C-alpha cells in the first residue's frame, strides 16, 4: 500500500484525468476553441507546480490555481458584449461569496453533521452555479462566480486574520494548483449552469430543437 503502487497511482491518475477533462470541457463551453482550452489546462497544471508568488502579509498567489483562472475571468468579462453581461460575473462572485461566508459561520465546523451533508469543498461551486443561473442562465457568470467567490472567501479569511492581529498566517490563493477549490468551483458551477439551463431549455420546448 504505497503511494507509488500501480493501484494507488491508477486511482489518483484516473481522478485527475477526469477532472482535467471536465475542466477542458468547461473552458470549451466558454467560447474558447479546443486547442486554446487544452493549452490553458496544460498551463494551469504546470503553473500549479511552480512556487507561489508572495504578496506580503502572509498572502501569496499560485500561478496555476489563481493567476491563470483569474486571467480567464478577466478575458471573459472583457469579451462580454453588453454591460449587463459584464457585471453579471462579478456580481455572481460577490453574492456567492457572501452566501458561502455566512454558511461557513452558520453551519457545523465539520462536514457530515446531520441535515447538512454538502462538503465545504463543493459549497462555492453549488452557490456560484445556482446564482449564475438565477441571474441570467450564464455559463460565463458561473465560471467567474466560482473562481471569484473562492478568491473573495480567501481574501476575507486573510483580512479577518489581520484584524484579529494574526499578521503572518499564510493564505495562498489557489495554492492547490489545478486541483484547487477555485477551479473545482468554476468547473462544477459551469457544469451545473449548463445542466440546469440545457434541461430547462429542452423541457420548455427550447430554441434549439433541431427542426
Amino acid at each position, binding site marked *: 500500500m504505497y503511494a507509488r503502487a500501480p493501484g494507488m497511482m491508477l*486511482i489518483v491518475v484516473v481522478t485527475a484525468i477526469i477532472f482535467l477533462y471536465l475542466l477542458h*470541457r468547461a473552458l470549451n463551453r466558454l467560447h474558447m476553441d479546443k486547442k486554446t482550452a487544452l493549452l490553458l489546462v496544460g498551463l494551469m497544471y504546470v503553473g500549479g507546480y511552480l512556487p507561489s508568488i508572495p504578496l506580503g502579509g502572509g498572502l501569496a498567489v499560485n500561478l496555476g490555481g489563481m493567476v491563470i483562472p483569474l486571467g480567464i475571468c478577466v478575458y471573459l468579462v472583457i469579451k462580454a458584449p453588453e454591460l449587463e453581461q459584464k457585471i453579471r460575473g462579478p456580481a455572481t462572485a460577490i453574492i456567492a461569496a457572501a452566501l458561502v461566508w455566512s454558511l461557513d459561520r452558520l*453551519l457545523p465546523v465539520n*462536514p457530515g453533521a446531520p*441535515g447538512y*451533508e*454538502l*462538503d465545504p*469543498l463543493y459549497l462555492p461551486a453549488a452557490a456560484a452555479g445556482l446564482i449564475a443561473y438565477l441571474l441570467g442562465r450564464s455559463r460565463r457568470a458561473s465560471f467567474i462566480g466560482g473562481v471569484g467567490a473562492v478568491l473573495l472567501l480567501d481574501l476575507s479569511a486573510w483580512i479577518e486574520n489581520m484584524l484579529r492581529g494574526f499578521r503572518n498566517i499564510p493564505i495562498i490563493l489557489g495554492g492547490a494548483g489545478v486541483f484547487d477549490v477555485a477551479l473545482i468551483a468554476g468547473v462544477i458551477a459551469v457544469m451545473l449552469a449548463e445542466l440546469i439551463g440545457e434541461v430547462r431549455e*429542452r423541457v420548455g420546448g427550447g430554441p434549439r430543437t433541431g427542426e
Partner: protein
Amino acid sequence: MRWQNRRVYVALFCALAVIFYWLGPFSLNLFRQALDEEILDELLEQERQENLYYRLVDEDGYCIVTTGRRLKPGDCYLAEDNRLYEVYAVEGYLARARFKEKIELELPGGENSSGNLTPALPVQKPAYSIAIYHSHNAESYVPSDGTDSIYGRGGIHDVGVAFKESLTQKGIEVYHSERLHLPHDRGAYRRSRVTAQQLLKKRPDAIFDVHRDAAPWDAYAVEVDGEMVTRIQIVVGLSHPGAAANKEYAFDLKGCADRIYPGLVRGVFLIWGGYNQDLSPLNLLLEVGAHTNSKEAAMHGISLFGDVVAYYFYGPSYLDNGAGAAEPGREDGRPPALYRDAGGILNAISGTVLGLLLTSLGAALGFYFLNNPGALEDLLSWWERAPQRLALLPGRFKQFVLNFPTLARNSWADFPENLIYNWHRLRQEASAAPGWAKAAAQKWGRRAAGRIKIWIRELPWRWRRSWTLLLQESRELPAFLRHRLLKGRERLEHTASGLGRMVRRAWPLFRESLRLAWHRTLVEGAHWAALIREKMAMLRRLRT
C-alpha cells in the same frame, strides 16, 4: 411521450447520477437545520459541561462508543473488536446502530495467512517520509492547556510534534506543517486543502490530518505501565469517489495496530464528508484523545501510533522498543504495506476506477445526446432496424453452411502450398532479424519447450490431485450447502423482522396521511364540483 422529452430525461438522469456521485446527497432540510440550534458539529460548551455526548449503542443497548461527533443515520463505525456497526436511528444523543459484519483484519503474510501471498510488485520502494498537518489548529486539551480551544496554535500542534519526533527517531523524514487555517470555521478544510496538496507534492508515503475529539476522558484514556495514554480514532470521509481505498487503508492500519499495541486504535469512523481525502488514498484523519484528556497522554498515544505507522510502511526493523517481538511468524522483516496490493485494496481500487469511468462515460453520453438532437434518433432507428438485420442472419448462416464443403475442399487443396509459402516467408523474415532478437527467440523457445516438458511430466499428478480434490469437495458440499441455507434463512428472518418493525412503526403515520389526503381530496373535489356547476349554470344562462 415525445422523443424530444425522452432525450431530456435520459440526459437528466445521466447528469444527475454524476452530480450525486461527486457531490453526495444534498439535504433539502438544510435551512430548517440551520435555523435549529443543533447545527454545530463540535459540541457546545453547555453540552460538554452537562456530559451530553453522542453515544453509539448496539441493538442490545450496549454502548459501543462515546464521541463528540454528531452522528446521523448511515454513519458506520468499526469498533475495537472489528465489528462493523451502522447507525440507523438517532434519538437525541443516542445513536442506535445495528451490527453489520465482522471485519477480518488479518495481515497478509502473517502467521495466520495461507503463506503464499507474495508482494504484488517487489519493485515498490517507500519514500521513508510521512506528512502531518492540522486542519483545526485551535483544538486543545483542557487539563494541560487550560482551555479546549486556542485561537491560533492550539495544543494539537504539540501532539503533531510528538508524532513527528516518534517517527524522526526512527530515521523517517517527517514533513510537519504547522500552517494555521484560521479563522476556525467551516472553510478551514478548504484552506487546509492547499496545505495537504503542498505536502503531497513532496511525495510522502502517507499523510495525516491530526485532530482531537470531544468526549469524556474515560472514552479515550487507558493506563499502560502506570502511564496514562489516550487512544486514537481514525476518521474516513465517504463523500468522494475514492473513499473505498481510504477505508481499506484505514482498516489495514488498524489491523496492524491491533497486532502491535492491541486497543491503541479505538475504532474507525466512516462518516459523511470529504476531509480532503480525495487528494490521496493515503490521507487519513486521526483523533488523538478528547479535550478532557491531558495533552501529555495524547502525545504518548500518538508516539505509540508512530510505531504502528513505521512498522506498517517500513517493517519490523523500524520498531525501536522491541515491540516487534509481539509479531510472531513475521521473520521475513517485510513491511505489511508491501503486501497490500493483493486483496481488499485491489477490489476497492478497481471498483472505484470502474465507477469513475462509468459515471464519466454516463456524463459524456448525457451531454452528447443533449447537444446532438439527431443522435438519439439515429440510435433508435438502428435499434428498430435490428430485428430486420437479425432476420437476415439465418439465411446468411444457411448460405455459409451450404458453401462450407466447397470452402473446406479449396482450403485443403491449397494447404500444402500455403504451408510451404508461409514457412519460407517466416524464414526470410527471421534471417533479416537482428542477432539479439534471434538469440532471444531461441532462448525463449528453449525455455518454453522446457516448461512444456515439465507440464507434460506433471500432468498425471495434476490429474490425480484434481480428482481427489473433486471427491473431497463433493463430500463436503452437502454440509456447506446446509450451512449456507441456514445462514440465508437467518439473514432472511433478520430482514423480515426489520421490515415488519418498520411497517408497524410506519403504518399509523401512513394511515393518518392517507386519511388527510382523502379528506383533502373530498374538499378539493367539492370545490371543483361547485366551480364547474357555477360555470355550467353561467353557460346555460348565456345560451338562454
